[in-house]
């Protein structure tokens, strides 16, 4: 019983630590959800607007989307779990805890993120949609940066996901 209590407290502490907002700089800690061919899905990296392009750098991989090729930009929100892949593994382990007590982690490890969707076309005219998860509040800033740099974006719609359920 003592072991179980200790395990639960440890997992909860880990969860609380991950649930804190990221203190990283504004352009880092961005997760690539899907859409950039040369970057792995769920890779975390830096998203910047530089030299007339939107750049995403994850380790040694980098992909650029020219600002002039951007057709639209959308901002939404999503509630997800903090801690990335490790967090997911911790949660799976916690499911085995007795009396479904591991579910406490679900409440502790949730975090809200902004979702930035950039619709753009390649030189052949093919449509692409790059989707990124950013720390909360940063997608709108990125959208402003992109539009100031000359990216085309229709007026913000009233997205269903704005009030995304936790």
């Amino acid at each position: 019983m003592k072991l179980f209590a200790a395990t639960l407290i440890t997992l909860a502490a880990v969860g609380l630590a991950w649930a804190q907002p990221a203190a990283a700089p504004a352009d880092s800690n961005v997760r690539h959800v899907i859409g950039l061919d040369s970057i792995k899905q769920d890779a975390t990296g830096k998203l910047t607007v530089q030299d007339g392009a939107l750049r995403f750098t994850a380790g040694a991989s980098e992909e650029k989307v020219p600002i002039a090729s951007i057709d639209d930009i959308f901002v939404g929100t999503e509630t997800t779990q903090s801690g990335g892949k490790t967090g997911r593994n911790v949660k799976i382990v916690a499911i085995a805890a007795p009396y479904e007590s591991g579910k406490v982690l679900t409440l502790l490890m949730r975090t809200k993120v902004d979702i930035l969707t950039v619709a753009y076309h390649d030189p052949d005219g093919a449509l692409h949609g790059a989707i990124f998860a950013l720390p909360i509040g940063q997608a709108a800033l990125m959208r402003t940066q992109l539009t100031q740099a000359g990216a085309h974006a229709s007026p913000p719609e009233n997205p269903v996901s704005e009030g995304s359920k936790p």
Partner: protein
Amino acid sequence: MSNRPIFVVLGLCWTLAAPAIASAQTAAKPKLSASAIQIAMVESGGGVQIPAEFRFAVYERLVERVRASGAFQKVYRAGDRAADGIPDLVTLRTKVDAFKEGSQTKRELTSVTGATKVDVTASVTTRDGQTLLAQKIVGRVRYFGENLGVTNDLAKRITKLMRETF
């Protein structure tokens, strides 16, 4: 005189004929053929509100999964000019009929509520507008994962349908 032998013979005939009828029905559905497919952008029909990130994520995952399935020699994105000269090109259209955004927290805490669900009609048309296939498909996230995971489930189901049809 008893009718029993007649029933036995009829039963035996039915037992022998049933698999043959079933296989004839299966054989009557030949696979369609096309060398290339163009994936159209996901549309929301009848004023259904679905956030842009969900539409783009379904589109991107479809491109990725249909390519990986090997059902077509070439898979083109929407707007790709390279697809213009292909005579037997077919187009995959996905129209969202209903969308319900659930809650990851509810899903993981209760296991029975909070599911995210998207209902679509997937259709395949030829260049001259002939509809080769139209089917309703439902994508769901029932337990684990963020709401955007519904796009992966949906793309998986549509790709399976493509593999079975082409």
